[in-house]
């Protein structure tokens, strides 16, 4: 079978789920006639019609709130943030209304909020964000952030079928750069399960999304240049975290680097470090280190963006330090 891109994989998932379940519908700004700013929903309007592919006013609160109401009534809305950065506008309704609906009111609120995320694309401070930390912090939400085309498709299908709200971060740098062969049939990937992207013995890198590829690149370099065997764990789901997979790799290599593109302070690396600390303290032969972005609004010029974001050479340096500890 031919390979398709990460972006096409997402679209395939949407089409298959809309074919499968008439309660699934899409809603967002410019997703219909235009097919979305990145063309993820291209072709959906002509296939499913205006009542299932809804172009909305510029209203992130409105869209997310409406998705919640539709979810209560048994629909399965998939809403797009044109850039995930604008999910900030819906922070109240997502964290206060949606996340608590089941718990405080026994109201089902199945819905997917998806959007292009992440940097390395010279998008500047408002088209490059990784806002996952603000939502991982909210009980009631699930958060996924795939790195591969296979996972993009499989997780999207699972997210749509999930009975709770799933925030689906799509890395825009990967949209057209990453390809994969889709498994036959109804390909789903379970939410909450990490993926071992590369096996290794000496050091573990725990990461997700675009930096999975940076970790793999660093691992190859480290193998070639230092003879180091680096394991790479792709979290895929950030809430709930796959503690089992995290602890397994820690217990195996005893040296851990947590890597993320998000800013450092308050990023998810802290949470992971805490969990490792609580559950695997005796297994640690070195401190859990972090490679992350600097705590700086992401600037736009290439030289600045490159400086603020984590790069492969940083990972190499950090792994070397861990290995030598």
């Amino acid at each position: 079978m031919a390979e398709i891109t990460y972006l096409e994989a997402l679209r395939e998932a949407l089409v298959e789920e809309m074919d499968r379940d008439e309660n699934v519908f899409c809603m967002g700004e410019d997703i219909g006639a235009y097919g979305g700013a990145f063309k993820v929903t291209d072709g959906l309007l002509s296939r499913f019609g205006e009542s299932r592919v809804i172009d909305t006013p510029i209203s992130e609160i409105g869209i997310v709130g409406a998705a919640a109401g539709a979810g209560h009534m048994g629909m399965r809305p998939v809403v797009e943030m044109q850039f995930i950065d604008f999910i900030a506008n819906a922070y109240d309704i997502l964290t206060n209304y949606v996340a608590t609906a089941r718990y405080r009111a026994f109201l089902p609120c199945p819905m997917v909020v998806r959007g292009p995320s992440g940097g390395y694309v010279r998008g500047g401070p408002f088209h490059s964000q990784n806002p996952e930390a603000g939502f991982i912090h909210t009980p009631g939400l699930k958060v996924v952030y795939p790195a591969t085309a296979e996972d993009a498709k499989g997780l999207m299908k699972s997210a749509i079928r999930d009975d709770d709200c799933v925030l689906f971060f799509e890395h825009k740098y990967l949209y057209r750069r990453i390809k994969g062969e889709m498994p036959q049939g109804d390909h789903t990937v379970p939410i909450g399960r990490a993926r071992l992207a590369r096996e290794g013995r000496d050091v573990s890198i725990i990461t997700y999304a675009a930096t999975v590829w940076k970790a793999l690149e660093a691992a190859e370099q480290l193998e070639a240049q230092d003879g180091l065997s680096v394991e790479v764990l792709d979290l895929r789901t950030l809430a709930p975290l796959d503690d089992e997979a995290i602890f397994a790799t820690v217990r195996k290599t005893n040296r851990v680097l947590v890597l993320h593109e998000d800013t450092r302070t308050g990023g998810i690396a802290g949470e992971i470090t805490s969990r490792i600390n609580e559950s695997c303290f005796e297994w640690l032969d070195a401190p859990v280190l972090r490679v992350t972005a600097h705590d700086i609004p992401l600037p736009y010029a290439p030289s600045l963006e490159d400086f603020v974001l984590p790069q492969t050479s940083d990972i190499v340096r950090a792994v070397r330090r861990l290995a030598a500890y």
Partner: protein
Amino acid sequence: MPASGKRKAGPGNREPGTETRGASGNGKRAELDGSRFPGPRSQSASDRASAKLTRDQKIDLYYWMRLTRSLEERLVALYRQTKVVGGLFRSLGQEADAVGSAYALERRDILSPLIRNLGSMLVKGATPLEILRQYMAKGDSPTRGRELNIHFGDTDRGFIGQISPLGDMVPVMAGVTMTFKMRRQDRVGLVYVGDGATSTGAFHEGINLAAVQRLPLVVIVENNGYAYSTPISKQTAARQFVDKAIGYGVPGAQADGNDVLAVYDVTKAAVDRARSGGGVSLIEVMTYRRKGHAEHDNQSYVPAGEIDRWAAENDPLDRYRVVMREELGATDEEIAAIDARVVRDIDAATDEAEKSPPPDPLDALIGVYADPPRERPLWFREGTDRAVDVNERPEGWGTWSGRTGSV
């Protein structure tokens, strides 16, 4: 309909806040927009939707208003006995607005009440027992002690509980009614917002989305003169809230919110319009909040005499009793019998509610997600079935080094 004059606003019955409204305008009222559907005052008596109500139904309206008021009075008593957990919110003087509007819906329709819509919820099937248990944070209350006061719902009976952040229910109800439309169901949604909540971004985004999509949604702005302490003159420069309809391209109408039949009429027209595919309507009901924002609020910010005037001259129950006597031929005995029935219902519910136990602490762990259905207690709680040791609480924290102030 000879009593219609009586339902009109009396002299003391001026609209709240008129002295300051239109501060930035020229004081002139906006022309009524031709596309607005006719409000009740412009209809002849027999055209009114309420003309089609049976006598029993009209008596019903009184029952619900009476129940609302008396139930809140019972809650006040319980509050003073410290049996209510947290704040108590009254709708005194606004019962007609809540009851009259909800009465215009069918059971299959869905409304989203606000803190002063106890009456709407009762009409939609919420029971006094549920309300009492909820206010007392009982384990068998509708939210099992998770949410406070009247923040609960039941989609079967057709109401969805609000959350505190104001305005959020407008987009949510846009989604509810979007579903009705997509499924071609013969159902309508109704959402209330206070005068204050019209200032929120959520209100704006929600009603605009609903308007563009022509969803079967009725938006009722309850203008009760205040948002907490803030008078409407500090909430909007618009001469009237109904003017906002124009900016969303939807029909607007106003009604005397203390006239239960007028509220019913104006809501029914909007509901019918929504049901027949006419999209969103915005209704401003003019009423007055006679108690504070919540029981603790002493209303020091209210001009002297204002509350008394509304109480004396424009109480919705007083006004409706006149209608009942003059139009429905109700006797004092008949009315007293309803009042007595209400008290009995509330007494029984109170006895029952007081018996209910508080929630089991471990119930806190259930149902954050569908999957997993239950959270694990944190490690420092393993083996315990509650959080607080019997002897810990009385001394309490904050008592350290004699630093405790009075609460």
